[in-house]
Every structure is written in structure tokens, then in C-alpha cells.
């Protein structure tokens, strides 16, 4: 009986926005803190405020480059950032990841013979992106026998595609230390 009780495991639902410090590796709290800082910074930058005051410019997100030694799903970071930006009502997005699916659907509508030609999507009517959002995530890792220190730096940039001008750029730094706890900290 005791053996059965001892082996029983439970599953609990937790707040997904809560601080997660299971390990020193890149985690959900890091992702959320990066997205919060970047979106706050972008939406409050005066030239961006001016551009988005009367209209909703179109942007596309290029995948964030992972320059760390960890396997990190950077698409998840950009998804969180683009969700927040889109929900702010300041920008619109084109999804380059789904271009092939859109092309296949257009081809199906035109050539399959199954679709009423009066209802097919008109070609050449998509709106071109005006801005590109891109960046990278890098890290510096230091180790001793008793301590591990990880420094992450996330850089995000907004480029005006026609002029090539960098309209906005910001960074978020995160430093995490894992080691034996000491008294009197």
C-alpha cells in the first residue's frame, strides 16, 4: 500500500505566465520577458508611433537567428512577438511561411475545374510588406566547477524595406546563474 502511494504521481495545471526556473537553459519566462520588452519598446518608439498613428503598415517577420549553443525554437519567440504586435492594432502582417500553401490554393482554384471561376481569388492583389522584423539571439556561457553563468542577448530590428533604413532596434539582456547556494545572500 505504501509502495503504491509512494509511486503515485500527480499532474497540476500552472500559470503559463508564471516564472519557470526548472533549469538554467532558455525557458518560457525568458521568451515571455523578451517578447514583452521588445513589443513595449517598438510600440512606444516615437517614429513608429508616428508611422502607425493613421494607418497599419504591413510587415513580415524573418526567422530569428539562433546564435546560441542551445536548441531554441526561435519561431516561437517571433510568434509571440507578432501576436502581441498584431493584437495592438498597429501593424498588419504577411505570413511568408504560408506562401506555398496560398500559391497551391490559387492554382487549385484556377486549374482544377472544380471551382466556380467567378469566385476565384484575383491574382496580383496581395499587399507588399513595407517593413521587415528580424534579429538574433546570442549567448555567452561561463562555467566553473561549482557555477554556471549564462548571458543571453536578444536583438530585434525593424527595417523599412524600400529605403533599407533601420527604423528601430532594441535589445533584451538576460543573465542567469546556477550554482551552490551561499549563506547570507
Amino acid at each position: 500500500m505504501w509502495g503504491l502511494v509512494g509511486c503515485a504521481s500527480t499532474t497540476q495545471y500552472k500559470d503559463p505566465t508564471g516564472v519557470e526556473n526548472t533549469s538554467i537553459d532558455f525557458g518560457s519566462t525568458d521568451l515571455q520577458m523578451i517578447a514583452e520588452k521588445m513589443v513595449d519598446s517598438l510600440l512606444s518608439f516615437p517614429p513608429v508611433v508616428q508611422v502607425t498613428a493613421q494607418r497599419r503598415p504591413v510587415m513580415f517577420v524573418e526567422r530569428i537567428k539562433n546564435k546560441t549553443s542551445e536548441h531554441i525554437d526561435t519561431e516561437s519567440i517571433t510568434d509571440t512577438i507578432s501576436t502581441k504586435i498584431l493584437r495592438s492594432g498597429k501593424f498588419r502582417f504577411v505570413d511568408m511561411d504560408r506562401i506555398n500553401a496560398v500559391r497551391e490554393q490559387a492554382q487549385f482554384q484556377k486549374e482544377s475545374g472544380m471551382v466556380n471561376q467567378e469566385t476565384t481569388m484575383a491574382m496580383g492583389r496581395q499587399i507588399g510588406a513595407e517593413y521587415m522584423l528580424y534579429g538574433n539571439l546570442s549567448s555567452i556561457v561561463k562555467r566553473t566547477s561549482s557555477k554556471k553563468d549564462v548571458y543571453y542577448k536578444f536583438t530585434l530590428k525593424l527595417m523599412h524595406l524600400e529605403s533599407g533604413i533601420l527604423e528601430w532596434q532594441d535589445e533584451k539582456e538576460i543573465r542567469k546563474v546556477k550554482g551552490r547556494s551561499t549563506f547570507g545572500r
Partner: protein
Amino acid sequence: MVRESSVIVGTLTCLLLWVLLVTTTGCITSGTTGTLEESPSGEFSEYIDASNIFLSSKLSIESMAMRDVGDLKQVQFVLHNRRHTTQDFEYKVVWYDGDGFAIDPDSRPWNPLTMRGKDSHPITATSPRASATTFKVHLKK
């Protein structure tokens, strides 16, 4: 003999009650590293979510400025540790619209923060949408 036994039982009961009282009080204070003091009575205490009374009595908003960035709101406030001891806690800025509804409360994360005794820390936040009119900083251990 019977009377002596009842006196002993009575004394033991009193002792047990006293031990229970001391233990219970110890549990309340040990988890909060300090005694329960008055709630913050500063000018900006309305912007601190007071659901965690132990933490909200240790922290206060020292100064605050809010401005419009386009149709969004931006706030900068200085969180102050009123105690001489280091406080490890988490905070989250939640924006509210004119009707008092929280705007996307799950879209902002809890941020870990360590503040040394009597330390101050500036925090800046931008509202996620134009409908925001005010904010609150939520605190938890």
C-alpha cells in the same frame, strides 16, 4: 487522587494550547520574513495589487509618470523596497480599460526581481491596446 489527575490534565491542556498558539504564529511570520505592518499609505498605493498583503506592505511605488504614446499609454514607476532585507518576488503589470476590465492579463509574464534592502528599481510598461486607461502592478512571492 482524582482531583490531582484533573489538575494535571488541565495544566497539560493549557500547555498544549500555548504551544499551538506559538507554533501557529510562528508559521505566519516565518513565511513572510518579518512582522505584519501597516499597508502602504503612499500616494501610489492604489496602483499596487494588494492581494498579497505581506508583500505589498514591504514594497511601495516611490514615483510614477504616465504619458500617451500615440493612442497607447506608457507608464514608468519606481518600485521601492521599504525593508532593510533583500526581497525576492515576482511582479506583473496588468492594464485595465475604462470599465475596469483587465486587458489580456495572460499576455504579460510574471517577472522575477530581487531587490536589496531599501533599494529602488524603475519599471516601464506600455499598454497593449488603446483602450487601456490605468494599470496595476501585481506582486507575488
